[in-house]
């Protein structure tokens, strides 16, 4: 890669490249592709948590105006992926992961889709769906996490870990030992999950879907319906947020495809907000018990961290909750355990910062408690136990600028104003508290392919089949292309969200910029190489040169030894009669690097807040989020991503909680009026500071990842600030005023 590249001195503005589409309403999301003869599908959902459908009453619905069909388990066509053993009982075919929609009459959870009504207008479909009645055989169920976790027989082991002595914390001079709980939290992106399916003939399918991974959805659908991948096209041009909920295909995706096949028309299926709570995953309910022991000098002696999180009864979902205790701080003795509790609710899934978001709540709050017991400043305590190498694998980090983050945040939040004694600082009758906590998430580089089409009119088209659910992947890719090719950003277009493009990764785990950026890097290198070779072959002045004698800079090719000999690449293409050149490049996964290094992004969040001493109402005043996310490619969207993570963390800390009525096994607050996500008035001043140091190993751009660490650590930072303000430690999220009063 040419050395003239310097991302900090980017001379390009970093307005989002898709900003105009988004502010004018032109951006088309999954449910916004107008198609002739569109039919509308609406789910009917189960109203019991466990049992079986005894009878479905469809007469009225079938005869309602405009109804084209009603699909349910008795008339649903056989789907290869739903019954992988039917054809070939000896061999296991591809089996659809999770709930096989309309496959049988078994009910696993409340809100499970049991029928799909298809009509010629949305209103008619909604009305007809209201006429469908189901009768059930009900069975005993369990939706109560607190009750279930006490029953050992229900728990499934999901992995233990030990290094050094187990429970060594007990031997330490000082230790803390407590339990922490987080409730179910839902992603609830603003765009409702939606799938529009269109069949062209019997074997060709196009799907407009809300998906974080068009290639993944394509593969799932192709195998599920027994089609060739090349005959399944998935389009995800714009994705209205997802935060993990669109990492996999949920039952509505095949349901729309089945419906389109049956009615022989394009079918649009949009979930309702209520269905967004019960059909597309959530962050699981989790209980944790953590104990940390340290010497009087603050040096950690042992950490024991145990967790139980819920899954469904038809699928196991686990995440790395206790993993953070194994490597975030240097500690000789660590033991962890993790178990799953299957409940009669739908399957959870990865939600922003999956694993560490939950784990850091316990770890970072426990460390805070420990700091008061030791009478050591919480930042100091973390510095005392700073992990210079990965404490479990002993591998060096590819890069770690966490100390810089502590320093940046401490200064910005005004940490020196913090009172060491909880509840002792007051301003205008309000209790004032400061808190901090760290976050971490794995970094790396996944596999990706990209195509570049460099045109003689001076424009460049870059392509890869990824999604951009909001972080600004398109903007980052255009920025990388602009820097590498020395072209203005407005000459470059990044095309994405279509499986017809070269395969890109699923957008998740903060990995898009690294993987796709590396592929774009390879594409640009190859384009430059091709141009150099073309110049040598076709321009007489270059004919004696070898490729290494030719330099490419900002659209010009030079002779290295004699800069007066030059040609612009547009002239070169025109001269050689080629309107464009095209290259496709693959960039491999960073597997070899992962053998030699530990790869992580880090964050530290600082919070200043006020608590009303009588009502317990919490008012956030200031959040400072700092991060070591490697080199920052696009400062403006990167900052927004951090801000967004902090806002998500506010919800996790203070308001978000799915409530289940265990008499009926039903969610009672599945709407935005009752499930409280943060609104504008809940949001304080948020400052973002990046260490902004390139990682030398992970990818050519020097970037790591931002999406997850933006949220991981925010909730414990708030909890720690609440403790600092009030002296009350709330270990059960969300921290609502009632918990501060009791």
């Amino acid at each position, binding site marked *: 890669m040419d050395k003239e590249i310097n991302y900090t001195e980017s001379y390009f503005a970093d307005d989002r490249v898709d900003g105009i589409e988004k*502010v*004018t309403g032109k951006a088309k999301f999954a*449910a916004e592709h107008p198609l002739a003869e569109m039919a509308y599908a609406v789910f009917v959902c189960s109203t019991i948590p466990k049992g079986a459908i005894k009878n479905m009453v469809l007469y009225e619905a079938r*005869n309602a105006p405009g109804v084209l069909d009603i699909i349910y388990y008795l008339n649903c066509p056989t789907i290869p992926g739903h019954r992988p053993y039917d054809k070939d009982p000896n061999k296991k075919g591809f089996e659809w992961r999770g709930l096989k929609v309309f496959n049988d009459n078994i009910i696993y959870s409340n809100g499970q889709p049991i029928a799909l009504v298809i009509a010629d207008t949305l209103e008619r479909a909604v009305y007809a769906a209201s006429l469908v009645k189901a009768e059930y055989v009900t069975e005993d169920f369990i939706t109560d996490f607190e009750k279930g976790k006490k029953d050992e027989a229900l728990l499934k082991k999901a992995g233990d870990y030990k290094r050094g002595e187990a429970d060594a914390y007990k031997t330490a001079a000082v230790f803390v030992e407590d339990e922490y709980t987080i409730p179910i939290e839902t*992603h609830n992106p*603003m765009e409702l999950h939606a799938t529009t399916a269109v069949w062209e003939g019997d074997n060709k399918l196009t799907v407009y879907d809300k998906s974080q991974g068009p290639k993944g959805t394509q593969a799932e659908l192709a195998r599920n319906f027994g089609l060739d991948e090349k005959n399944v096209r998935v389009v995800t041009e714009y994705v*209205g*947020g997802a935060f993990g909920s669109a990492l996999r295909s949920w039952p509505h995706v095949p349901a729309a495809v089945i419906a389109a096949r049956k009615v022989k028309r394009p079918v649009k299926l949009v979930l309702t907000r209520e269905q967004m709570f019960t059909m597309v995953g959530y962050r699981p309910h989790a209980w944790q018990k953590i104990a940390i022991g340290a010497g009087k000098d603050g040096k950690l002696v042992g950490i024991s961290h145990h967790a139980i999180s819920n899954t469904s009864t038809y699928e196991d979902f686990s995440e790395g909750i206790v993993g953070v205790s194994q490597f975030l701080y240097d500690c000789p003795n660590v033991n962890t355990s993790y178990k799953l509790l299957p409940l009669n609710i739908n399957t959870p899934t990865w939600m922003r910062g999956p694993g560490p978001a939950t784990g850091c709540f316990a770890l970072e709050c426990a460390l805070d408690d420990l700091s008061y017991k030791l009478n050591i400043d919480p930042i100091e305590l973390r510095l005392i136990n700073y992990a210079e190498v990965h404490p479990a694998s002993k591998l060096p980090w590819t890069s770690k600028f966490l100390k810089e983050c502590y320093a940046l945040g401490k200064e910005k939040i005004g940490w020196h104003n913090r009172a060491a004694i909880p509840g002792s600082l007051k301003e205008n009758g309000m209790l004032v508290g400061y808190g901090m906590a760290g976050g971490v998430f794995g970094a790396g580089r996944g596999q990706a392919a990209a195509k570049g089409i460099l045109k003689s009119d001076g424009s460049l088209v870059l392509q890869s089949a990824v999604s951009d659910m909001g972080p600004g992947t398109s903007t980052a890719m255009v920025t990388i292309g602009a820097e590498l090719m020395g072209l203005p950003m407005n000459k470059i277009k990044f095309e994405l969200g279509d499986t017809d493009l070269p395969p890109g990764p699923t957008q998740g785990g903060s990995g898009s910029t690294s993987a796709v950026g590396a592929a774009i890097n390879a594409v640009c290198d190859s384009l430059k190489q091709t141009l150099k070779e073309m110049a040598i072959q076709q321009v007489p002045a270059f004919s004696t040169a070898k490729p290494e004698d030719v330099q490419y800079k900002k659209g010009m090719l030079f002779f290295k030894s004699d800069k007066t000999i030059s040609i612009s690449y547009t002239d070169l293409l025109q001269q050689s009669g080629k309107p464009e050149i095209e290259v496709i490049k693959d960039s491999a996964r960073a597997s070899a690097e992962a053998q030699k290094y530990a790869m992580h992004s880090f964050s530290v969040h600082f919070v200043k807040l006020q608590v009303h001493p009588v009502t317990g109402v919490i008012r956030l005043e200031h959040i400072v989020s700092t991060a070591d996310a490697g080199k920052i490619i696009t400062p403006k969207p990167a900052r*927004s991503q951090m801000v967004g993570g902090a806002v998500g963390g506010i919800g996790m800390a203070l308001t978000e909680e799915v409530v289940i009525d265990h008499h009926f096994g039903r969610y009672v607050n599945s709407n935005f009026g009752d499930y409280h996500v943060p609104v*504008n008035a809940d949001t304080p001043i948020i400052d973002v500071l990046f260490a902004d140091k390139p990682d030398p190993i992970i990818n050519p751009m020097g970037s790591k990842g931002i999406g997850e660490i933006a949220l991981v650590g925010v909730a414990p930072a708030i909890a720690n600030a609440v403790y600092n303000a009030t002296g009350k430690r709330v270990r059960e999220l969300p921290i609502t005023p009632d918990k501060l009063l009791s």
Partner: protein
Amino acid sequence: MEQEYKENCAGESRRDFLKKSTALAALATATPVLLKAAGNDEKIAGYFEKIPLQLEVNGKVHNLSVEPRVTLLDLLREQLNLTGTKKGCDHGQCGACTVHVDGRRINSCLSLAVMNEGKNVTTIEGLADGEKLHPMQESFIKHDGFQCGYCTPGQIMSAIACVKEGHANSVDEIREFMSGNICRCGAYPNIVDAIMEVKKGGQPL
């Protein structure tokens, strides 16, 4: 297999009712054209369920025939193909569907289309003047007042109204009067900055 034994006598379906009463009565007096169009029960039902509606959207007058149960939001999105206005909840709880009706911001999911007879609707598609963006749209881009962009049309429509209402005099006031618009991507501080700049700029909105 399918046991539809509950074919109920207690409550006739709406179609059955129509067949027996209104529809038959209407058919008796209908013109031949109508009779031809109403070739089956669904079409008859459809014809009688729709009522005329005149509506101006982004300066264009539409003469429509819509069912009374169609919301303004669904009319815009599904019938007029103005998908810039978003559906986030359909319950008046998120603000994604915010449009201006006669200059006031409303949640279009909470308004039946037919309640807007003769009114003037402005959606996100009606803000820009050709290539020239509305100052609020420009300010949202400049301040990165969004990530995924799904809540954005609603935020922008709300933001313009917020300034016009005189509710954008301070950061706190903006936060309060923009709290009916949820942004799950959490772009709130940037949205406030974008509005503050437009307010200070004082351009006519």
